[in-house]
């Protein structure tokens, strides 16, 4: 046998005489090797390609959609010239095909009716559905004023509807991507540097010498160019320091993983400042030039030694010192990452500020390998009459939060519940592109709010949970079947990207722009929609910007030269920060004037009681929130989430791998579905972990229904951020139940 093997190798080696790796390299492969099944169908067919940007998450990577002559979408490939993806999509973007092919999609407008006493939906024509929406919006306008009609949105459909709402007279707008996502960091960084972080984050990860991740789990958080640049940083031998109570993928790639006790990050950040300042290794030149209130900060952090922090964070003092010195040594090419989903414990703006201050001490803002000066190009607004001025709007709803800069979903929800304190009554919701039930905590309150609404319309592509509460459901076609606004985002260089339909809308679905226009027409707002096809708007805008629809269809992405000056601070020149003092505010008068801590302080948050575990959650790299769980391509990769438990916990609770368990939180809220156990060393013994977005309860989602548990469902307690109204969601604790509690109560 052995003999024949060797001779076999000789044979194959002979065949492989050293031809260079060129296009003709494989000429010797029998052409019918392509007959690896269905594949050759594709190889036979000429693929047409059309430009889009991805809508599976909000990184908005520009891509090419390839479809065959039969008009079936085959694959989606990143656009080489796009700074968001450099020609490589993430798994969700590549699997975006499934958003289009999913046979569970919403297919036609639906209207709520009573069939023998029971609520259900009946199919309706677009005419009827849109008439009904317009009628109700008109009604709310006349009875309460247009302000009482709220728009809760996320993603591309939002912009079309925002235009409709402004024209209609309502500025009552909110999205979960603020008060449940990045709001606190924008406030924290705004107060310190006078600038939002924004998206994509202007973190110069590609060129950094030291990347510090506070929770932020890049690699599971698949925000594309960040993942790519972190990989570049690894190649460049950058130091990665990850602070995470869980062994995240990023932690496993880090030279230093600080396995911190949950909810104690501010203590660590303060002691890092302490080390930088009292070991005299902070960026003096930079701080002297740009810092304001440094002395106050120095005094403030004096007591916060690593030894002090150790008692709180369980991170060893020598680890704290070592990592602080590494940051200092790499400064200013050090990034203490602002994170993105930062609504954790209610003091999140302050934690974000602590992170900002740390970056200030290191001098990373405005320096290579730190934070670059981002730039975008503004897209001219298609001409329309001026908008009316609403009496109140999202601002009034968040007036008790002095530093709120966008609408808060939670406040819109509260304002929809009639009561003594209902100063700004909300009577109708237009929900588009957000599955509130899965993305906003306190489901009871959401349901109460919805019950008290006069009217609710949901625009979605899928029969998600939220659609079940609607009076009217408007099926939007997927991003692969429509035009949307031109993508213009901040980046190193300004760039724009086009979204054009690769195929006509499937079923009886329509694009958001069309619905907005149709509703507008019915509300006598036609002059705000002075076009027949959104194509015209895009073409006009592009021409204004020195391009054209024709050109953009060919190139997909257009990059522009910077106009705002250099990417980093220039030697000799000084930089003006957009803060009251014009400098980096280590001490914030603004905060002080509102009776809030001018410099972050550590406050302890409660930890789980006997028998309870902190509910920790995060991203599945293969999914986006709840929106992709039913996607055929992506559910093929991860069809359910699992409950990560430490082996110690498994022993105590008597759990085995893949065993199904139910969860009950501190307020007695039960998980609707069981979740399988994963016993792993990657998680602490005081917490359990699960991917967000699973545990769908709508049976119409044939792949997603009942798969895994919903973290959101178990988040009934939130800690509100006093600065901007963020809803901290990581202060919930769960008990692990071996049997279904709900069944038990029935029996």
């Amino acid at each position, binding site marked *: 046998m052995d003999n*024949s093997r060797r001779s*076999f*190798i000789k044979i*194959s080696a002979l065949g*492989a*005489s*050293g*031809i*260079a*790796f*060129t*296009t*003709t*390299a*494989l*000429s*010797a*492969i029998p052409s*019918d*090797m*392509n*007959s*690896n*099944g*269905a*594949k050759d*169908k*594709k*190889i036979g067919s000429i693929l047409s390609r059309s430009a889009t940007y991805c809508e599976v998450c909000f990184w908005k990577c520009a891509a090419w959609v390839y479809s065959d002559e039969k008009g079936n979408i*085959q694959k989606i*490939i990143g656009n080489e010239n796009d700074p968001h993806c450099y020609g*490589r*999509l*993430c*798994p969700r973007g590549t*699997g975006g095909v499934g958003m289009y092919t999913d046979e569970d999609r919403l297919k036609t407008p639906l209207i709520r009716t009573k069939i023998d006493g029971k609520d259900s939906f009946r199919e309706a024509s677009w005419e009827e559905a849109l008439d009904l929406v317009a009628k109700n919006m008109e009604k709310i306008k006349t009875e309460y004023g247009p302000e009482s009609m709220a728009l809760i949105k996320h993603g591309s459909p939002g912009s079309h509807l925002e235009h409709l709402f402004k024209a209609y007279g309502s500025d009552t707008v909110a999205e979960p991507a603020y008060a449940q996502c990045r709001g606190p960091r924008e406030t924290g960084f705004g107060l310190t540097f006078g600038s939002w972080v924004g998206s994509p984050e202007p973190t110069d990860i590609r060129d950094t010498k030291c990347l510090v991740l506070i929770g932020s789990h890049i*690699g*599971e958080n*698949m925000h594309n160019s960040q*993942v*790519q640049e*972190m*990989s*570049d940083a*690894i190649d460049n031998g950058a130091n990665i320091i990850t602070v995470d109570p869980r*062994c995240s*993928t990023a932690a*496993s*790639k880090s030279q230093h993983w600080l396995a911190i006790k949950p909810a104690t990050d501010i203590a660590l950040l303060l002691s890092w400042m302490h080390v930088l300042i009292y070991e005299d290794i902070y960026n003096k030149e930079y701080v002297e030039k740009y810092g304001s209130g440094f002395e106050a900060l120095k005094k403030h952090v004096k007591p916060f030694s690593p030894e002090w922090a150790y008692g709180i964070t369980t991170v060893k003092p020598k680890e704290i010192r070592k990592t602080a010195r590494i940051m200092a040594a790499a400064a200013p090419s050090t990034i203490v990452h602002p994170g993105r989903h930062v609504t954790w414990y209610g003091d999140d703006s302050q934690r974000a500020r602590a992170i900002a201050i740390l970056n200030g001490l290191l001098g990373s803002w405005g320096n290579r390998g730190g934070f670059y000066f981002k730039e975008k190009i503004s897209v001219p607004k298609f001409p329309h009459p001026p908008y009316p001025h609403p009496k109140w709007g999202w601002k009034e709803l968040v007036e008790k939060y002095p530093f709120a800069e966008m609408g808060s979903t939670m406040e819109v929800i509260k304002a929809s519940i009639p009561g003594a304190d209902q100063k700004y009554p909300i009577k109708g919701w237009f929900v588009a592109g957000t599955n509130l039930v899965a993305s906003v905590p306190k489901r009871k309150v959401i349901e109460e709010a919805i019950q008290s609404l006069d009217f609710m319309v949901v625009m979605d592509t899928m029969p998600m949970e939220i659609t079940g509460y609607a009076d009217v459901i408007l099926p939007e076609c997927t991003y692969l079947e429509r035009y949307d606004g031109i993508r213009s985002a901040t980046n190193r260089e300004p760039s724009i990207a086009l979204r054009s339909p690769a195929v006509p809308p499937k079923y009886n679905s329509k694009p958001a722009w069309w619905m907005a226009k149709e509703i507008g027409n019915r509300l006598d707002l036609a002059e705000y929609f002075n076009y027949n096809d959104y194509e015209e708007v895009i073409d006009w805008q592009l021409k204004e910007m020195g391009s054209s629809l024709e050109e953009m269809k060919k190139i997909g992405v257009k990059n522009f030269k910077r106009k705002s000056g250099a990417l980093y601070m220039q030697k000799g020149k000084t930089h003006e920060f957009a803060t009251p003092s014009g400098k980096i505010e280590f001490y914030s008068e603004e905060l002080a004037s509102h009776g809030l801590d001018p410099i972050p302080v550590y406050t302890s948050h409660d930890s789980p009681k006997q028998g309870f575990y902190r509910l920790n959650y995060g991203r599945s*790299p*293969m999914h986006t929130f709840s929106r992709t769980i039913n996607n055929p*391509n*992506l559910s*093929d*990769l991860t069809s359910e989430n699992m409950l990560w438990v430490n082996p110690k916990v498994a022993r105590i609770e008597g759990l085995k791998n893949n065993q199904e368990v139910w969860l009950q939180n501190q307020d007695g809220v039960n998980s609707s579905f069981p979740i399988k156990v994963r016993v*792993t*060393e*990657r998680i*602490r*013994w005081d917490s359990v972990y699960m991917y967000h977005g699973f545990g769908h309860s709508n049976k119409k989602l044939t792949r997603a229904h009942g798969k895994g548990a919903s973290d959101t469902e178990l988040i009934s307690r939130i800690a509100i951020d006093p600065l901007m109204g963020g809803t901290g969601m990581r202060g919930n604790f769960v008990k692990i139940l071996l049997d279904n509690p709900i069944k038990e109560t029935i029996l």
Partner: protein
Amino acid sequence: MKYAMVIDTLKCVGCSDCVVACQTENNVPIGYCRDWVTESVNGSYPHVELELKSERCNHCDNAPCVRCCPTGASHVAEGGIVLVTAGECIGCGACIESCPYDARFQHPDGYVDKCTFCAQRLKEGQLPACVSVCPTKCMYFGDLDDPTSKVSHLLQSRKHKVLAPEAGTKPNVYYLI
């Protein structure tokens, strides 16, 4: 010429983009896959070692699947790529039994399917779909007979391993560790 794939486990984040990309590029039916991703965890909290690996057919120099194939459907093509000619495959399953990596499967249409190193793309001078999509750029593909190629360079300069060397199949997919 000798094609090889080199995958840097220090950069792979286990996102499985390589799997989706393969499915959409090669029309691999949902429920099947030519490549897959594994995670191995060692140690105990907080001293945890995590290794993520994208795996597929290793296009072995010493391929039992080719040897055991009664019809020659499984064969070695230019550059050492191990391929299956659907039109010659009788679906006896011998090659599946013979692969220590369980890298082969029966396509719903009956013939045996597996990773082809995207030979149809190589012909056009493109890299394999999985390699070209990987967001961490942790996959490299090239010719080991060419000492100047990136793959040769990586294997000269970095610590690496192959899967189940004791199986004696001489894989051409390498993992940097």
